[in-house]
C-alpha cells in the first residue's frame, strides 16, 4: 500500500474514485494516464524477439519430424514434447503476460491445466489398460 485515494459515492450508491473517472490521489496528482498505459508489459522489441525464438523452435520441431527413423522414436517424441512445452510456456509467459500480471490469474489458469492433466491422465491410464486387455 503506497498511496491513498479519495472516493465519492456514485449515483448507484457505489464507492468510486474521485474526479471525472480519474483517480485523484490525496496529493492531488492524477494517476489515470499512467493507469491507461501499462508499463509493466513488454515492449514491441521484446515481443518480436519472442516471436523469433518461437519461429526457431517451430523450425526445429519440423526438422525433428524428418529425423523419424534416424533417431530413436522415444527420444524424438520426448524432444518434440519439450519443444512444444517451451513454446507453450513462452506464449503464456510473455504474450499472455503471466510473468507480469498478478499471480492470481496465473493460479486460475494453472489450476485448469493441472485439473485437465490429472483428469485426462487418469482417463487415459484407465481406458488404455482396458483397450489393451481387450485386444
Amino acid at each position, binding site marked *: *500500500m*503506497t*498511496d*491513498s*485515494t*479519495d*472516493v465519492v459515492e456514485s449515483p448507484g450508491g457505489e*464507492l*468510486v*474514485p474521485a474526479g471525472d473517472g480519474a*483517480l485523484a*490521489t490525496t496529493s492531488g496528482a492524477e494517476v*489515470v494516464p*499512467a*493507469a*491507461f*498505459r*501499462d*508499463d*509493466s*508489459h513488454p515492449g514491441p522489441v521484446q*515481443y518480436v524477439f*519472442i*516471436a523469433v525464438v518461437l*519461429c526457431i523452435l*517451430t523450425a526445429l*520441431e*519440423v526438422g525433428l*519430424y524428418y529425423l*523419424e527413423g534416424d533417431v530413436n*522414436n522415444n527420444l524424438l*517424441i520426448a524432444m*518434440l*514434447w519439450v*519443444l*512444444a512445452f517451451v*513454446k*507453450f510456456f513462452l*506464449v503464456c509467459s*510473455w*504474450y*499472455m*503476460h503471466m510473468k*507480469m*500480471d*498478478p499471480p*492470481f*490469474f496465473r493460479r*486460475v*489458469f494453472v*489450476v*485448469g491445466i493441472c*485439473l*485437465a492433466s490429472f*483428469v*485426462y491422465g487418469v*482417463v*487415459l491410464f484407465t*481406458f488404455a489398460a482396458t483397450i*489393451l486387455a481387450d485386444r
Partner: protein
Amino acid sequence: MAQAVVPSEGHHKYEIEPGFHGHHAPTNTGVSNPKLAIWLFLSSEALFFGAFIATYFLYRGRDSYFNEGPTPKELFNIPFTSVTSFVLLMSSLTMVLALAAIQRGDHRRLRIWLLATAFFGLVFVGGQVFEFTEFYREGLALNTNLFGTTFFTLTGLHGAHVTAGIVWLVTLWSRSVQGRLHDQHSEAIEIAGLYWHFVDIVWIIIFTAIYLIPQH
C-alpha cells in the same frame, strides 16, 4: 506502472495496491473482473480441449479401427501444416503488437495489427478448410475410422475457436474505426488477446500431438 485501487480500513478511502497492472474499476478481489472472467473461461477451455486431445491419444495406435482407411502418414502434408502453424504463431505477435499500440495510444497501428491478426487467422482457417477438403477427397471422413472422428472433431473445434476469435477481432477493429474504442479500453484488447493466444497454445499442442509425433 499502473496501479489498482483497493479498499482500505477507512470507510471512504481506497488505496493503490503496489504491483498491480492494468486499469479497472475497484473490485472486491483487487483484480479486474473481466480479466478474471476470461482467465476462468480459458481455464475451463483447457479442460474442454483436454477432453478431445485425451480421446485422440486414447485411440491412437491402440484401437484396430484407428487406421482403417487412409492413414495419417499418407494424408498429412507437413510442410503445408507447418506454414499454417507458423502463420497462427505470427498472429500472436501481431495481437500483442495491437495491445502495445493501444497502450501507447496509437490507434492507427492498433487497427493495422488487429486487421493483420484477423487476416492471419483467416489464412489459418483457410488452410484448415483446404486440408479437410483434401483429406475428404482422399477418403477420410468423420465416420471413416477413429482417426477421422478424433482428428476432425479436435481440429474442427479448434478452427471454430479461431473463427470466433476472428469475429471478435473484426468487431474490435470496427469499434476502433467508429471511434468507440478509447485508450481506457485497452483491457478489451488485452482480453481478446488472451483468448487469441490461448487458441495459439492449443494449436502448439495439437500440431505436436497429431502431426509431428510419429504414428505407429
